[in-house]
């Protein structure tokens, strides 16, 4: 087979296989009497009834608002603090054991702490999402700033670039590949913590809905919520991938030319 043919076959398979699996699921579950696995058509119906667009304003919007508020705070704080630690070697050495320890705590273990201090409202959820998302961004920023090529630093210093431009024009762009890697990790953490925090203490939100559906034995509804979370995870990931691809275009180009 030609390379071109192979390529098309590959792309075709990539699209066809997931669809085929979904169809198989649909066929196998049709008329299913198994309690946990309702017919796929029932799940679709529940999905349409709940998420198009009945519960968008009551559950989806509050969920995503909390998620992106926490995520946004983590980005701003993580990058700023990361710059600070990244630029000062001694601050980095001093902070290292504390950062390592805080990072090692499994995020959900901090949830009771957040509830204790902030109660069960939005503040708690935003706090816990921000706190957990902070570490990957912070540590990656430190790493990125720290490993900026010394020649670039010296070039900026030699030409007397004002410190503000040195931060915005040199340090941040040079560290951006690592910063983006950290943000990518945090994005999936944000979604996870959003769900957990809503499962543990909430009266609305997607996580609350999913767990509540299970408790009230509304199984197709539960599945529809799982589907929605899956779709959201996929969409956020893909959307972030597009942004990253655009912003870091120079990085891929530079690396490709360095390897070539």
């Amino acid at each position, binding site marked *: 087979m030609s390379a071109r043919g*192979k390529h098309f*076959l*590959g792309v075709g*398979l*990539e*699209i066809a*296989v*997931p669809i085929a699996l979904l169809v198989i699921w649909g066929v196998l579950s049709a008329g299913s009497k198994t*309690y*946990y696995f309702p017919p796929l058509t029932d799940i679709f119906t529940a999905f349409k009834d709940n998420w198009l667009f009945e519960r968008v304003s009551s559950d989806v919007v509050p969920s995503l608002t909390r998620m992106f508020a926490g995520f946004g705070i983590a980005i701003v704080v993580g990058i700023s603090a990361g710059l600070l630690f990244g630029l000062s070697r001694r601050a980095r*050495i*001093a*902070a*290292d*054991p*504390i950062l*390592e*320890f*805080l990072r*090692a*705590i*499994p995020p*959900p*273990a*901090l*949830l*009771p*702490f957040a509830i*204790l*201090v902030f109660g069960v409202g939005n503040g708690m959820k935003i706090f816990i999402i921000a706190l957990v998302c902070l570490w*990957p961004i912070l*540590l*990656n920023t430190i790493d990125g700033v720290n490993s900026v090529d010394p020649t670039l630093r010296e070039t900026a*210093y030699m030409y007397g670039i004002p410190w503000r431009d040195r931060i915005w024009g040199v340090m941040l762009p040079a560290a951006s590949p690592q910063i983006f*890697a*950290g943000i*990518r*990790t945090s994005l*999936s953490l944000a*979604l*996870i913590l959003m*769900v*957990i925090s809503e*499962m*543990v203490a909430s009266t609305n939100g997607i*996580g609350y809905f*999913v*767990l509540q*559906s*299970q408790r009230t034995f509304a*199984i197709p509804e*539960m*599945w529809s*919520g*799982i589907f929605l*979370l*899956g779709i959201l*995870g*996929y969409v956020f*990931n893909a959307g972030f991938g597009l942004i990253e691809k655009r912003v870091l275009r120079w990085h891929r180009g530079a690396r490709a030319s360095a390897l070539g």
Partner: protein
Amino acid sequence: MAASARPRLPDWLLPWLSVLGVLVLFDVLPRIGVLPEAHFPPISKTLGTLFDQLSVSEFWNAVGDTVQGWALGLLVAAALAIPLGILIGSSGLLYRSVRGVIEFLRPIPSVALIPLAILIYGSGIKSVVFLAAFAAFWQLIVQVLYGVQDVDPVATDTARSFGLSRPQRLLRVTLPSSVPYIATGLRLASAVSLILTVTAELVIGSSGLGKEISQARSGGDVQLMYALIIATGVLGLVLNLVFVQAERRVLRWHPSQRRAAT
């Protein structure tokens, strides 16, 4: 850039000083009322509680349960992801067929499956292992696939020219050269497995540190809650160190490994 002339603290002292500083700060601030003591007990009291816990059998049972959930989750994930990853990764056609599926399933937050786990497995260890294994599986298989894709084609061709059969090539060439990636994958998967174990304990109420933390809070025993959070952190730290060390050992002979984002 100018060298400073005044005497400075030596570098090795800095981490100790900062740890000491944080401890003192969180001991003094609650005592003088800057932080509310009801929410932030002085750290010396918390550490005292933690020390007392070390001789309490329930504490060790909880640690044991959490470690069990973590280990079984990781084990199941590894038993599935490593062979599957190698199999899928070494066949171009198979890889293309499932890539779309993996890309679609991977970003699904595994915590979304908590209700399903409760439905099927109840609130015991089975649920914990299911969730931990599910989450760890994706971390691991992605790394295994990277590793298999990264095998030097020259090595494969050489093996082929020596007449090694396909299974032999998998065993002799593909597996060894993807070992560093598998090591990285195991480290990431270990962290995720622990996170999901604690989550399950917290949300579902399976026995373990997560459940104890949650109960300490609802019972109003704030010192115990902090002590257990610290204990969980130490557990996370220890597990991470073990895997970082193991990874370093494996990486020593493999320079091509890229830094993995954690």
